[in-house]
């Protein structure tokens, strides 16, 4: 390697002054660690958000009753109806399916001596296809079940485990709010979702039975609309079609706000992030400021060091070093210090992200920016030595040696 001797000279200097090296590397280490932790946690949150959107269905739009409130939460106001579903079915060009559901939380259920509190979904059979939520074992609901308001259910994995303790629930009877239901099947496992909680802690019954046997209310709690594909254009266009239909159905005119909330997979993902984007940006901004500071510190300290090091630079020139040798040596000193800081930052940032994710129940993840961000930061700091290196290279060796 042609410039190996410059690397050697630079490393000799960096190694010889451990305190100075540590002080210069410290700001790089801190900002690298911070950027790394931020980006790792953000990648984790993004992955979690995407998983939430995926699990709800990347081609599924959800409509909930109620006015849009901050952060997309909506109150339970009975504004959605079967007529809305019919109107949407007939007028949405891009929709593959539209289904209304009734949902009740906190419903007491028991089987034998075991009991628990779960969520009940009243649906029609096509719902399973839209939400990709069919029966793993046994059977899902049939059109006949809906037509006859049959007291049959398909239970989630958590319900099956907790009420039947590992025994086979199919064919067994459970009491749902004191009403006996026969178990037809067990739902596919879905696990927990930030958007919906434990999605296995639910049972699914015919929507007609929900109304006739459990909760006698006409309104719907959710309408799901399945788009033909999950492209953002299709979803956005579908949303644009949904709003006028429902506003017309609900007789909302002019500038009056919607009495329903349309959520796209993106919205669901954003809600599922848990930590707002602004916290992430603030943290990333702080590490950027830290990086600038680290760069400035390396630049200024190295520049001032050149004055002190005139004798060293002069004697190296006298011994045959060219200005380019001095330039490379001083620049490599800056690179070495920055790299050291970057490595320490790596060693601190990864555990910090892991710890943060544990304590705050966030996620950790990996993306290109996890690599690129800290790399940019270290590169910036490494560039700080270039200007002082030019100063050093331009020193007149005769004048530099005159300094006593």
């Amino acid at each position, binding site marked *: 390697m042609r410039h190996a*001797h410059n690397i050697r000279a630079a490393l*000799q200097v960096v190694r010889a002054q451990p305190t100075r090296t540590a002080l210069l590397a410290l700001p790089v280490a801190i900002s690298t660690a911070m950027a790394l932790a931020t980006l790792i946690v953000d990648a984790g949150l993004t992955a979690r958000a995407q998983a939430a959107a995926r699990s709800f269905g990347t081609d599924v739009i959800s409509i909930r009753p109620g006015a849009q409130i901050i952060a997309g939460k909506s109150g339970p106001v009975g504004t959605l109806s079967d007529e809305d579903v019919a109107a949407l079915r007939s007028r949405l060009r891009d929709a593959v399916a539209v289904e209304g559901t009734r949902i009740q939380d906190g419903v007491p259920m028991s089987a034998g001596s075991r009991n628990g509190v779960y969520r009940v979904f009243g649906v029609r059979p096509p719902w399973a296809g839209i939400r990709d939520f069919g029966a793993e074992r046994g059977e899902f609901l049939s059109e006949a079940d809906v037509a006859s308001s049959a007291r049959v259910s398909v239970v989630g994995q958590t319900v099956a485990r907790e009420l039947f303790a590992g025994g086979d629930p199919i064919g067994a009877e459970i009491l749902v709010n004191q009403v006996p239901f026969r178990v037809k099947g067990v739902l596919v496992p879905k696990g927990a979702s930030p958007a919906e909680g434990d999605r296995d802690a639910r049972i699914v019954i015919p929507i007609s039975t929900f109304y006739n046997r459990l909760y006698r209310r006409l309104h719907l709690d959710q309408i799901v609309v399945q788009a033909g594909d999950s492209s953002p254009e299709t979803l956005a266009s579908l949303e644009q079609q949904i709003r006028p239909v429902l506003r017309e159905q609900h007789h909302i005119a002019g500038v009056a706000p919607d009495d329903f909330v349309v959520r796209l997979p993106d919205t669901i993902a954003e809600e599922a992030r848990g930590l707002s984007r602004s916290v992430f940006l603030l943290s990333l901004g702080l590490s950027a400021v830290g990086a600038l500071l680290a760069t400035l510190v390396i630049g200024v300290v190295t520049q001032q060091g050149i004055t002190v090091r005139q004798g*060293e630079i002069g004697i*190296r020139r*006298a011994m045959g*070093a060219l200005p380019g040798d001095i330039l490379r040596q001083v620049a490599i000193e800056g690179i070495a210090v920055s790299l050291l800081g970057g490595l320490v930052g790596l060693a601190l940032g990864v555990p910090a992200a892991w710890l943060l994710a544990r304590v705050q129940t966030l996620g950790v993840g990996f993306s290109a920016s996890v690599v690129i961000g800290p790399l940019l930061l270290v590169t910036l700091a490494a560039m700080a030595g270039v200007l002082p290196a030019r100063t050093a290279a331009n020193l007149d060796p005769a004048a530099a*040696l005159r300094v006593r």
Partner: protein
Amino acid sequence: MQIDAHDLYKTYRDSRGQPVQALCGVDLHVRAGEFVAVSGPSGCGKSTLLNVLGCLDRPDRGSCRLNGEEVASWPETRRAAFRNRRLGFVFQSFHLLPFLSVKDNVELPRLYAHDGPATAPLNVSDLLDSVGLAGTEERYPAELSGGQQQRVAIARALVLGADLLLADEPTGNLDQATAHTILNLFAELARRGRTIILVTHDPAVAGRASRKLQMAAGKIVQDTAVDRPGVPA
């Protein structure tokens, strides 16, 4: 190494930007193996002469031939390689790198020796032995006395086989007894064929050379051979 300098002129600007005539027509001829002391009052141009001869500075005018080669017009790359191989520098403040061991300090010129050894590289231990510092390889400059540090600097100047030593007040920071031993070392090196140019303002130091040059206002005003038994004139 033989030196043939003719009609050297050099003007530089001081810290206030005023032009200072450092060399005003210097003629100098030195044969290989001569030990030449250059003295004169402050600002007479003796350090500038040393820098021009040492290829650290270029004359404004005139010719500077080292072993018959016009070094003043060489590009910097060639001058740097020449300094590396053929010239050795010794300074009043030693200019050792405090963070390197004695051995690494002595070997420093090897970092900048790109084209393979011109002469067989000297063994550092032998070299240290020859300047009276046997066994100090792993020590650091701060652990050594001033005289010892100057010996390290001399060993460093010789490590690639320099045949012209340029010394600027090499005994300026040393006590008289130590200075004496360092000057003996220079005399010994001259006896073995190296050319030595030593700048000093101390007449006693100048008296140890084989030839004394007196400078004033950028000119050599006196050139005296010192009659000393055992030292070639």
